[in-house]
C-alpha cells in the first residue's frame, strides 16, 4: 500500500468497521456498526451518554473487544492475534477524557516512554521527538515538571503530545474536553484544530459542536448503540434527517 501514489492514498480507507456488535453481558452496546474512515478524514461522533460512542472508539484500538463483525485498521484486521493488536496500537493514538498521564513520570518521560519501550528508539532521539511535539502543543517549558503540577488543560495537551510521539496515523479522542474547566477547553480545542489542519486522521467523541462545525468532514450521531445519522456538518446541523437527531440537537444547542 505504502508505495502507491498520493492521489490514490488520499481516498484509501484507514479504518473499516463492518457489522460490529458488542455486548456487556446481555446488554447490547454496539449494534451493527458500519463505518469507513478515509485517510486524512476528521470525524466527530456525538450522541447522548450511554449511546455507545466511547465503546465504539475504544474497540478501534482494542481496549474493548468486539464480539461480532470486523474492524480493520490500515489493512490489519483486529483479531485475537496479539501481533496484530500491537501493530494496530502502534498506529492508533488515543486521548482520554481523564488524560491518564502517568503521575510518577515527568512530562518528558511520559512522552518518551512508549517510543523507547515500544518503538525501541534511542533515548536521545525520543527526547528530541518529544520536545518537538511538546513545542507544537505549546508547553515545552513544562517538560521537566510532573503531571500533578500542571493544569487540566495543560495535562490534556501533554496527553495529546504523548500520543503523537508514537507517530500514529490515526488519533482517537474520547471526550477530551469533558473533564476540563470551561476556560481550559479552548486551549485543548486549539491544539486539536491545529492537528486537524496538519492532515491527521481523527475520530473525536465530543460535545463541542463548534469544533464539529469548523473541523469535521463528517458528523456521526449515535444513540442506543447504533449510528442514527451521518452527514457533513453543514447538513447535519441545519438539516438533520432523523427525528432523534433533531431532538438531540435542539436540546444541546438551545443554551
Amino acid at each position, binding site marked *: 500500500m505504502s508505495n502507491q501514489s498520493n492521489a490514490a492514498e488520499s481516498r484509501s480507507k484507514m479504518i473499516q468497521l463492518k457489522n460490529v456488535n458488542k455486548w456487556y453481558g446481555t446488554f447490547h452496546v454496539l449494534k451493527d456498526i458500519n463505518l469507513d474512515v478515509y485517510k486524512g478524514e476528521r470525524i466527530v461522533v456525538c450522541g447522548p451518554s450511554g449511546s455507545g460512542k466511547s465503546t465504539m472508539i475504544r474497540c478501534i484500538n482494542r481496549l474493548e473487544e468486539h464480539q*461480532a463483525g470486523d474492524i480493520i485498521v490500515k489493512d490489519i*484486521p483486529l483479531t*485475537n492475534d496479539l501481533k496484530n493488536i500491537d501493530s494496530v496500537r502502534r498506529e492508533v493514538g488515543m486521548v482520554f477524557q481523564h488524560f491518564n498521564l502517568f503521575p510518577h513520570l515527568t512530562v518528558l518521560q511520559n512522552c518518551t516512554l512508549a517510543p523507547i519501550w515500544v518503538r525501541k528508539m534511542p533515548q536521545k532521539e525520543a527526547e528530541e521527538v518529544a520536545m518537538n511535539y511538546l513545542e507544537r502543543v505549546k508547553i515545552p517549558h513544562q517538560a521537566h515538571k510532573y503531571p500533578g503540577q500542571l493544569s487540566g488543560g495543560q495535562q490534556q495537551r501533554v496527553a495529546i503530545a504523548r500520543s503523537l510521539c508514537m507517530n500514529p496515523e490515526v488519533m482517537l479522542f474520547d471526550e477530551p474536553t469533558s473533564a476540563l474547566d470551561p476556560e481550559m477547553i479552548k486551549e485543548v480545542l486549539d491544539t486539536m484544530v491545529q492537528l486537524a489542519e496538519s492532515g491527521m486522521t481523527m475520530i473525536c467523541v465530543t460535545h463541542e459542536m463548534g469544533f464539529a462545525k469548523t473541523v469535521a468532514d463528517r458528523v456521526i450521531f449515535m444513540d442506543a448503540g447504533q449510528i442514527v445519522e451521518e452527514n457533513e456538518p453543514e447538513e447535519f446541523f441545519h438539516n438533520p434527517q432523523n427525528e432523534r437527531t433533531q431532538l438531540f440537537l435542539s436540546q444541546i444547542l438551545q443554551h
Partner: protein
Amino acid sequence: MANQSNGQGKAKTSFWNDPAVRSVVFQLLAIGAVVAFFLYIINNALSNMEARGITTGFAFLNDSAGFGILQTLVPFDETYSYGRTFIVGLLNTVLVSVLGIFLATILGFIIGIARLSKNWLIAKLASVYIEIFRNIPLLLQIFFWYFAVLRALPSPRDSFNFNDSVFFNVRGLYMPEPIAQDGFGAVWIALFAAIAIIIGVVRYEKKYQLRTGKTFPLFFPSLGLLIGLPLITYFIVGSPMYLEYPELKGFNFQNGMVVIPELIALLLALTIYTAAFIAEVVRSGIEAVPHGQSEAANALGLTNGQRLRLIIIPQAMRVIIPPLTNQYLNLTKNSSLATAIGYPDLVSVFAGTTLNQTGQAVEIIFMTMAVYLTLSLTTSALMNWYNKRIALIER
C-alpha cells in the same frame, strides 16, 4: 484488501500470538508446576518416612495417649486415645479464645472510646496504652505475666485469701464451684423463658411505638425479669445447688474450681494485646462517621443517647465489624502461643506432645492447620457476605 471476514482473519492468527492459546498454555504450565512440586515432596516424604520407619495414616488416633493434660474440659486421663487429645486441645483453644474475645472486646471498646474523650488526660492515657502494648511482641507479654508476675505469687500455704472462699497463689486461682442438684433444670427453663418474654416484649414495644408514637421503659424491667424469674424459680424449687469450697490439703488446694496460671497469663496477655488493636479499630470506626452526622442529629433535636443509638453507632459499626472480626481471628490464632508456657491448647497438646510421642508429623500438622484454616475461611466467608449485604443497603 481481499480477506476481511472475521473467520479468515482468525485463520491468519499465528498459534502462539492468540491470547487464548497463551493463557491456556500458561495455565497448563502452572498446573504442571504445582502438581510436579507436590508429587516431588510427597514422593520424598514417603521415602523419608519409610526410611525412618514412620507408618502413615490416621490409625494412631485410636492408640492410647499415655500422658496427662493439665486442664481438660471433657473427661481425660492417660488411658484415653490420641484422638481424644485432639478434642481436649481444641476445647482448651476454644475456651481461651472465647474468654479472650469477650474480655478484649470490653477493654478495647473502653480504651477506644477513651481515646476519643474530650478529656485530654484520659485520651492521652488511652493512646499511651495503645502505643505501648501493640508494639511489644505478644509472646513477650505472655512470658512477662507468666514468669515475672504469676511465678512470683506466694505458695498455696500463703495464698492471697479472699473471705476464705477465693484463693490466689502460684498454682492458680481457686474459687468455690457451684454444684447443681436435682431440680436445677427448672432454673434453666426459667432463664430461657425470661429471655423469650423479653424478646417478645421488645418486638411488641417497637410495634406499639410505630402505632401510637409512644414508648415505654424497657431496659430495667427486662433486667429485672432476666434476674428475677430464675431467682424466684430457684427458691421455689428449694435452692437445688450448693457451693463446694476449695480447701488446703497438704501442699495444695482440693475441690472447688481452679483457673490454672497458664490460662490466666495467656488470657491477660491476649486481652491486653488485642484490646490495643480493638481500641484502634473502634476509634477509627467512630471517627469515620462524619461530624456533620452529629450536627444534623443535634439540629433535628435528638437527645445525646438517641444520637448515639440511632445515628452514630449504626454507621460506626459498619466500619468496625469487619476489622473487629479480623482481630477476633488474630486472637484465636495467637492463642496458639500457649505452647510456649504449656497451656494445653490444640498446638501445645496435639502438635506438641502428641506429635513428639507418635512422630506422625504430616497427619498432625495437617489436622492442626485444618482447624485454624476452617475457622479463618468460615469467618472470611461470613465477612464477605456481611460486606455485600451492607453494600446493597447503601444503594
